[in-house]
């Protein structure tokens, strides 16, 4: 176990380093339009102002020093937005509750719904129910969140007045919080439910033909126990793996469209703003947070795999 954790930690650090270098090159070195100091100074700045900004923010230094300084600022929490002047980490800290609310609520919704629908599709395989669920899954996967979100806002929010027109309310007002989160949860979940239920359906059908399921039945176990303890336990492995990575991505700002459509001022919304403003430091920090959460949750999933599947050993 210790060897496994050490190896994963080292791999994690290497991956983060590689991601940070690629991101830095993409956002700062290869910045479209060139000079970041000129962009920060604005369209009316003169050469003297641009030069001063360049010196102040270290754009005149060699690239590798700029990289080290930028990363040091991100990790020690002192990075700030050149465009708006805020401390990036504290700003993202303020954005985190909205994103966590979205990720956790939607994550639970899409996981439970996928298990229910995927299992139903598997046991009704080839029947009418399965076909209907297949079509619905395809619709869900093909429905972009900005479209579904806009339709909900227009018809369920504006016309029917059943949901708010967007915005985030702190969980300190639990009822308002819930009311504001229902539509974003649903919108984000639809995308994943379609995909997850198809994966689970296939996985269950595969597992049903396995020898260990036949053995379990031969031992006289009830069908419920066979399903829950043997079939679902194994079939859920790929789902849990996917779920972990997707949740990590949403936490790291991956729900850009959902957060933007519903004006949830979370990390995804902040990412969209940063892209629009060419706010490279904020964007770089968000990418690092996403990478970190994906890598950490990936490692946790590996451990969980071993718990669920006795054949896997962590070495």
């Amino acid at each position, binding site marked *: 176990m210790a060897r496994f954790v050490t190896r994963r930690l080292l791999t994690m650090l290497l991956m983060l380093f590689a991601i940070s270098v690629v991101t830095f090159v993409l956002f700062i070195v290869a910045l*479209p339009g060139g000079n970041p100091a000129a962009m920060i100074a604005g369209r009316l700045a003169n*050469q003297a102002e641009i030069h001063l900004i360049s010196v102040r923010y270290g754009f005149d230094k060699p690239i590798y020093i700029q990289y080290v300084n930028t990363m040091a600022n991100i990790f020690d929490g002192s990075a700030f937005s050149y465009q*708006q002047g805020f401390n990036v980490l504290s700003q993202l800290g303020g954005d985190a509750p909205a994103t966590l609310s979205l990720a956790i609520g939607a994550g639970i919704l899409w996981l439970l719904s996928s298990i229910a629908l995927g299992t139903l599709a598997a*046991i009704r395989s080839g029947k009418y129910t399965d076909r209907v669920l297949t079509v619905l899954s395809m619709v869900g996967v093909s429905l972009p969140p900005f479209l579904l979100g806009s339709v909900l806002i227009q018809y369920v929010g504006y016309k029917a007045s059943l949901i708010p027109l967007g915005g985030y309310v702190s969980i300190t007002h639990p009822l308002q919080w819930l009311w504001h989160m*229902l539509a974003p949860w649903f919108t984000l979940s639809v995308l994943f439910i379609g995909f997850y239920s198809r994966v689970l359906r296939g996985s269950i059908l595969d597992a049903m033909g396995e020898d260990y399921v036949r053995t379990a039945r031969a031992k006289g176990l009830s069908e419920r126990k066979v399903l829950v303890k043997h079939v679902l336990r194994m079939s859920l492995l790929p789902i849990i793996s996917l779920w972990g990575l997707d949740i990590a991505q949403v936490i790291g700002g991956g729900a850009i469209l959902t957060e933007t459509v519903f004006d949830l*001022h979370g990390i995804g919304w902040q990412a969209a*703003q940063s892209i629009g403003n060419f706010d490279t430091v904020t964007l770089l920090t968000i990418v690092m947070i996403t990478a970190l959460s994906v890598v950490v949750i990936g490692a946790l999933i590996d451990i969980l795999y071993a718990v669920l599947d006795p054949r896997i050993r962590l070495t």
Partner: protein
Amino acid sequence: MEEDATVRNHLKRSTWSVLLAVVGVAAIAAAIAANAAAKAKARAAASTITLLSGPGPQSLDPGLDYTTQGSEINWEVYTGLTTYKHANGMASTELQPGLATALPKISANGKTYTVTLRKGLKYSNGAPVKASDFLYTVERSLSIPWGGSATFMTPYVVGAQAYATHKAKTISGIQANNRTGKIVIHLTQAYGPFANVLAFPAFGLVDPKTAPKPFKVQASNPPAGAGPYMVTNISIGKSFNIVPNPNWHGLPGIPKATVPFTEQINANVNANALSVLKNSNQVFDWADTIPPADLAAAKATGHYKLVNLGGSVYYFFLNASRPPFNNELARQAVVAGLNQSGFSRLGSGTLAPGCFFLPPGIPGHGTGPCPIAKNPATGDLALAKKLLKQSGQANTPITVYGEERSPRLQWEQAYVQELQQIGFKHVQLKEVADANYFTTIGESKKVNPQTGFADWNEDFPNPIDFYGVLLNGKAIQATNNENFGQTNDPYLNKQIAKLGVVPTTKLNTVAGQWRALERYVAKHAYAAVFGYQSFPFFTSKNVTVKFTNDIYGWDLLGIQAH
């Protein structure tokens, strides 16, 4: 097969149980939500007016912000030595004394401005306002730096350039006497709109104790200012409150504020428009565009009007330093062919056609028939084709530069089509990300674009704000150039230098000369103007707008809830 059927029956039962549980949870959630909605409606009856804005201000720190979204708030939070009248229409662009007792006294050579600070003024935190705070404020804005510093302040105030480049510890050209309240500003050259420059929120006085050195942007805790309003509870990029300043007791022409506001920054402008339509929130920001789908409903409320603030011009620059537009006939061909009503349609009907460079709200705006196409709304395609043929430039390849956002992209695409229609054989569109569009096309040496989209919104109602920056040969820079057309006409430069020194308050004495210059620029087709923009002023039914401001858009003192 039999075994499978049994398994499936059991599975079916358990699956339906899970499904029922999920549906149950959803039903409970919906019930709770309905309850929450009822309570929310009851709370919405509060008297605070909510203003919804798509993009928020760059910053609420006046030392940094140079955006319309920031200025519309900050001009009433950081009152300058001068400010603008709280009135409707053109009257709202007239200067009036702000923190100073009177408008600046200008020396005969136009190079010395003298004002006296009013007595007994206090910042929003209760600290007294001192004359020396003006110098401190200017130093702070040049240090951060504020986006307009290099255009409006450093070239004109003695010692400002040296201070901005760290060659001097203070700005030698500003002297302030705290005992008498007298402030004297020495300019390097006469600059007509300098009294307007003093009204910029960036030079609205700040309390030094709340903005200590070394100067830095105070995004979440901007310095205390002196004005009818103060900003509190800032959640950067999300929301903030604009509440009456308890230490502002009103000045002549600048009353005490009574109505509190909350600004919410929501990128989804469609949801913002719907929210105002439902009266859930009160004010839709004028700088945002109401989506066409909501326009009819907004108009039907009776609380929507399209206002031409009179201070913005939209145009395609034509680079006179390189082919094909170093040929005057080629430039005239483009201007002749512009179908401006088509451009207006693409912009949800928000553009008014015109051919003169100054927008209608600026003194000196051109009048009379257009020199090239008689009717700019439709253009004259036959004339355009004829002029291009005469120029012999049809085979010159053209790259049109443009921004990505709507409707600008659509305007640029229509422009490309028009160039092709009048006879240019090789035209391509190059889109640049909005965030660095103007700095990209401002690269005179590396890029030096032939033509492309440009716009300008007034900083103050003086023609020099447009001509001095956008058409002045002496303003051409290697980087961050704003004279995208590289216009460098000796006659034009001479007239700009001559007319630019006339103070804004005396513009009526030279309005005729500006109008003549307008005709000159239109005749030589130095820019292809395609309209002056109007903006949507839209509120809910429980709000009355008594007056707006033609420079900053909203005047919070003119908005009331009922």
